[in-house]
C-alpha cells in the first residue's frame, strides 16, 4: 500500500482534506481552500530542496621565488607569540597587537607568498589625526586615558587576509500572503490569498575578506571594512618597507566557514528582496550552491594602536586605504554619573518651572 500524502494548510499548518464538492483541498480547522495542483507543486518543491553546497576548490597564495625572502626578517613576540615580518630596512621593537617587546628570530622562510597587496594610502600623521578626532569631544572618556595614550606608538601593519570569490547560486522557496479587506452593512471581510513563491538566481561575490591572523581581532578587521580591491596590486616585497607585516596563522580552510556565513547571509537578503507585492512573506526553505569558488591571499593595510587603562586592553584600528577609524573607548563611570545628575537636575528644573508658569499639575 502506497504512502498517503498529507498536505499541510499554508494558513494554519493543519492537515488538509479533499472537499469533493469544491474539488479542492480544504482545511477543516480554518476553512481555507487550496488548488490541488499548485499545492502539490509547492509541496514537491519543499521536498526537493537540497543542502547548501559551499565548497572552495582553488588554493590561495603561491610559492616564493628563490632569494625573494632573503631580506625579510621575522620578529617574535614572547608575550602573545605573534610573528611580525619586516624587510631589512625596517626594525620592529614592539608587538603591534599586544605592545610588548619583540625580538628578531631570524630570516623569513616558509609560508605562502601573498597574491595581492593594498598599499598604505594614509601615513602615520593622518593616523594620529584620525585617532585624535576619534577621541575628541567624548564627554564620558576618562581624561587620564587621553593623557596616557601613546599616540606616537601607532604602527602600520599589513594584516593577512584570505579573499573569497564565488558565484552564489540560490534556490529559494517562500510563502507569500496578500490581504484584501472590505465590508458591507453587517460584516467586515478579510481575504487572505496564499502564494507559493520560488526564486532561483546567481549572484557574484568578489574579494570577500576573512582575517588570517589570530592576533588581530576579526571584529576589528570587519569594522574597518570595506577595502577597495581595485587598488590592490600584485605583491612585491618593496611595499613592506617602513611597515610590519603579520604572518598568517589561520589557514584559508579555517577561514571558509566565516566567508560562507557572510556570503549566505547576503545571498538570502538579495533573494528576499526580489519577492515583492505581498503583505507578508516567509521563507519556507532554500539552498545555496557556490560555483567558481576560489580564494586568494592578500595583505591589507591597517594602522594599529594598543593601549591599556584600568587593567583593560583597548585596540584602535584605522583602514590604511580609506582612513576609517574604529575602536571602543572606555567609559568613565564618574563622568557618566555627573552627566546623569546634571541632565536630571536641568530637565527637572525646566519642567518644574514650566509647571509653575502655567499652573499645571
Amino acid at each position, binding site marked *: 500500500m502506497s504512502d498517503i500524502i498529507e498536505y499541510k494548510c*499554508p*494558513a494554519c499548518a493543519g492537515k488538509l482534506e479533499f472537499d469533493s464538492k469544491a474539488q479542492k483541498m480544504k*482545511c477543516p480547522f480554518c*476553512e*481555507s*481552500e*487550496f*488548488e490541488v495542483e499548485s499545492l502539490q507543486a*509547492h509541496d514537491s518543491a519543499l521536498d526537493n530542496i537540497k543542502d547548501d553546497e559551499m565548497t572552495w576548490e582553488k588554493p590561495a597564495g603561491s610559492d616564493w621565488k628563490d632569494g625573494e625572502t632573503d631580506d625579510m626578517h621575522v620578529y617574535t613576540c614572547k608575550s602573545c607569540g605573534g610573528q611580525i615580518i619586516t624587510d631589512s630596512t625596517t626594525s620592529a621593537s614592539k608587538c603591534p597587537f599586544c605592545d610588548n617587546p619583540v625580538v628578531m628570530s631570524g630570516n623569513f622562510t616558509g609560508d605562502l607568498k601573498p597574491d595581492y597587496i593594498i598599499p598604505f594610502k594614509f601615513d602615520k600623521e593622518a593616523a594620529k589625526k584620525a585617532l585624535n578626532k576619534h577621541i575628541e*569631544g*567624548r564627554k*564620558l*572618556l576618562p581624561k587620564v586615558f587621553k593623557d596616557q595614550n601613546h599616540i606616537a606608538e601607532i604602527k602600520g601593519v599589513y594584516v593577512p587576509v584570505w579573499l573569497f570569490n564565488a558565484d552564489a547560486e540560490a*534556490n529559494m522557496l517562500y510563502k507569500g500572503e496578500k490581504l484584501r479587506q472590505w465590508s458591507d*452593512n*453587517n460584516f467586515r*471581510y*478579510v*481575504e*487572505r*490569498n*496564499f502564494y507559493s*513563491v*520560488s*526564486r*532561483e*538566481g546567481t*549572484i*557574484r*561575490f*568578489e574579494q*570577500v575578506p576573512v582575517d588570517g591572523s589570530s592576533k588581530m*581581532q576579526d571584529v576589528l578587521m570587519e*569594522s574597518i571594512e570595506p577595502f577597495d580591491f581595485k587598488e590592490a596590486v600584485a605583491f612585491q616585497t618593496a611595499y613592506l618597507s617602513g611597515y610590519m607585516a603579520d604572518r598568517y596563522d589561520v589557514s584559508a580552510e579555517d577561514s571558509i566557514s566565516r*566567508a560562507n556565513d*557572510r556570503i549566505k*547571509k*547576503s545571498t538570502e537578503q*538579495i533573494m528576499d528582496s*526580489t519577492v515583492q507585492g505581498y503583505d507578508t512573506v516567509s521563507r519556507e526553505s532554500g539552498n545555496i550552491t557556490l560555483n567558481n569558488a576560489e580564494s586568494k591571499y592578500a595583505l591589507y593595510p591597517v594602522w594599529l594602536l594598543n593601549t591599556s587603562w584600568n587593567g583593560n586592553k583597548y585596540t584602535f584600528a584605522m583602514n590604511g586605504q580609506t582612513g576609517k*577609524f*574604529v*575602536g*571602543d573607548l*572606555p567609559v568613565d563611570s564618574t563622568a*557618566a554619573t555627573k*552627566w*546623569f*545628575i*546634571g541632565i536630571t537636575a536641568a*530637565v*527637572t*528644573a525646566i*519642567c*518644574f518651572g*514650566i509647571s509653575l508658569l*502655567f*499652573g*499645571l*499639575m
Partner: protein
Amino acid sequence: MKIKNLAASAVSICLMFSAAFAVSSSYKSPLISLEASAEYEFELIDETKTSENVDAIEEYDYNEYNFEENAFQDNDDTYQGYGEYDVSTYESGTASYNPVTAFIISLIIGLLAALVAVSVMKASMRSVHRKAGAMDYRMESNLKLERNHDTFLGKKVDKTPIARANPPQGPNISMKR
C-alpha cells in the same frame, strides 16, 4: 557634536512635555462648572373658546413633558408658561496646583531624559561591530534571476460582524390624533 545632539534631544523632550502641558491647560476639565439653561414659552389657549383652539390643545400632550406645574400661570384667556431649567449644574471650581506632584512628575521626566541621554553617550563610545554579510563585495547589479514563479495556492475569507450601537431614539413625544 554628539553632545550637542544629546542636548537637543533633551530639550526636545522638554518642549514636547511643555507642549503637552500647554494643550492640556487649554482643555477644560469637568471640574469647571458646566451650566446650561433653556427658556421655553408656551401659549395655552382657553379650551372653551373655539373648536380650532381645542384642536390646537390636543396636538400636544403636555403630560409627557416633565415640566413643573408652577411653570404655568393662569391668565384670563390664555396661559403663559415660563420655565427656566438648569440641565446640569455642578459646583464651580478650578483644579488646584500641587507643587509636590508637579515636582515629582518633573523629576521623573528629568530622570528619563538623563537616562536616554547618557545611554546614547555610552553607545557612541562603541564603534566596533561585526559585519553580518558581504554586501560590500557583491558585484553591482549582477543578479541573474533564472526562475521567478508566483503560484496561487488558495484563499481564506474571514467574516467578522460589525458591532453597532443601539439605534438612535427620537424625542419622547407622543402624538395624539
